[in-house]
């Protein structure tokens, strides 16, 4: 079997909540081990798409999904162990969420829930994840204090450390920078560049320039339709195939 370069392959994905369809049949591929940017104004179906990818859409009672979503050629809706599957996908929400636990327990929460109890292994894992999220130096002396007491930017990095704690293959970031300061944003962007060598990163962002800085490929969604997808250089060149893309990336609307 020839290994495809695509990590995720999405075909004709449709999502609706009740009577309201929010994603109208989009198809695209997300290449392995690189940053994949998703841009588009509010209400364009970006977050719903991420919820399908990690299957937390299951928790939304009136959601209806059709189409194919394949990870490494495997249909995610036929996954038997859905908890084990979610573990393969890291998810970072727009607003930082420090769980009401200590910093250490925040990061050790997911591994523990899967049965890792060995103290040395947990210690090493917590340190590695916090280091990867560029937070270790700031919190290493107070791992026992509450995660909810950290500043917003630190909590967002804690969220990233938590997403890394279950060693995901795909890391989804949903507008991670809307609630944090520019300096922290730059720190996290550096982290992401480093991580992209070992995992696939889906970067949903409201800052088109962020996608331009980081992503190798970028997709532009508008009202649940895929307008254009391609190499980031091309999307931002001003010579994109669809005039709407040019307008959006140059800030004409959105």
């Amino acid at each position, binding site marked *: 079997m020839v290994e495809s370069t695509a990590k995720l392959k999405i075909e004709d994905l449709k999502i609706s909540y009740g009577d309201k369809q929010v994603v109208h049949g989009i198809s695209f591929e997300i290449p392995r081990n690189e940053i994949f940017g998703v841009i588009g104004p509010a209400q364009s179906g970006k977050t719903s798409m991420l919820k399908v990818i*990690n299957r*937390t859409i299951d*928790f939304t*009672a009136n959601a209806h999904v059709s189409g194919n979503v394949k990870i490494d050629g495997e249909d995610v809706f036929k996954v038997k162990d*859905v*908890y*084990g*599957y*979610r*573990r393969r996908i*890291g*998810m970072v*929400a727009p*607003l930082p*969420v*420090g*769980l*009401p*636990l200590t910093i250490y327990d925040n990061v050790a*929460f*997911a591994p523990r*829930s*899967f049965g890792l109890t060995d103290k040395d292994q947990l210690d090493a894992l917590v340190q590695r994840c916090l280091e990867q999220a560029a937070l270790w130096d700031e919190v290493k002396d107070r791992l026992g204090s*509450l995660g*909810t007491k950290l500043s917003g930017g630190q909590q967002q990095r804690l*969220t990233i450390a*938590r*997403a890394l*704690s*279950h060693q995901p293959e795909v890391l989804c970031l949903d507008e991670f920078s809307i609630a944090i300061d520019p300096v922290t944003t730059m720190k996290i962007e550096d982290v992401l560049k480093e991580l992209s060598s070992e995992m696939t990163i889906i970067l949903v962002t409201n800052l088109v320039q962020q996608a331009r800085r980081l992503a190798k490929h970028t997709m532009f969604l508008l009202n649940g339709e895929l307008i254009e997808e391609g190499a980031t250089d091309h999307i931002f060149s001003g010579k994109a195939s669809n005039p709407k893309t040019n307008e959006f990336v140059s800030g004409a609307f959105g």
Partner: protein
Amino acid sequence: MSENEINSKRFTKTSLVLKKEFNEKLAKGIFFSMTLAMIVPLLLIVSFLIYKAWPSLSFSFIFDMPKNGMKEGGIWPAFLGTLYLVIISLIIAAPVGVMAAIYLNEYAKDNWLTRTINLAVINLAGVPSIVHALFGLGAFVLFAGMGTSVIAASLTLAVMTLPVIIASTKEALSAVPMTFRQASWNMGVSRWQTIQRIVLPNSISGILTGIILQVSRAAGETAPIMFTGAVVFVPIAGDEVLAYGLMDKCMALAMHLYTISTQIPNVPESLQFAIAVALLGVVLLVNALSIGLRVYLRTHRKW
């Protein structure tokens, strides 16, 4: 306006500011006097009761048997009976109520069945206690054949407190931010693990408060136990703690107070007030416990 005029007005109070300050003081004053108006009757009631009850109040009053056709002596069987009823009814109602609330708040989908159940819970919480009494009489005493007994009365009290426990527990659970649950689910943690490790530890103070407040309600109600388990007099030894069996009839403070004040002639006035003080004491003690617990757990709140 010249620059000087503007500068001189910048730090003076205009009529608008004065009006604003007056309204501020007025509002604060009204709200404060309403708060006082709440406390004054409570203090008056408590001090009046204690003053009237003083001749009969003593430590042995609680632990003695009623004597001389209940015109003298203590209230031990009634005190013990109230403890029995409250504890047994809570042992039944608290776990059922908390678990039902967890289901309704954490698992149930928003469909017509859930909405109907929620509506039923809210309406049940508003049912008058005498209606619960008749239900208890029909269901437990007669239909289930328990007779008038401690268990029938406790079950009736449990049915009465259950909807309020469900409602208050649901309230406490839904106060835990949804984002905590989502963050936990995103990491492949199951719903039950999330409830155990995130939701319950952060809502336990609210849940306990809701339960404990029902203690005072169960202790104070006369109607639900009148037909189902409480009787006018049961002779038990003064030093017995396990005096009542589940199928026995028992005495209860609220019932005792009612009997003494209305059914028996020539009872010294102070005795009636002393029983009221004992009842009020039990209720206030439980409330103080709940407040203390809430304060303790709130200082340990984590977000």
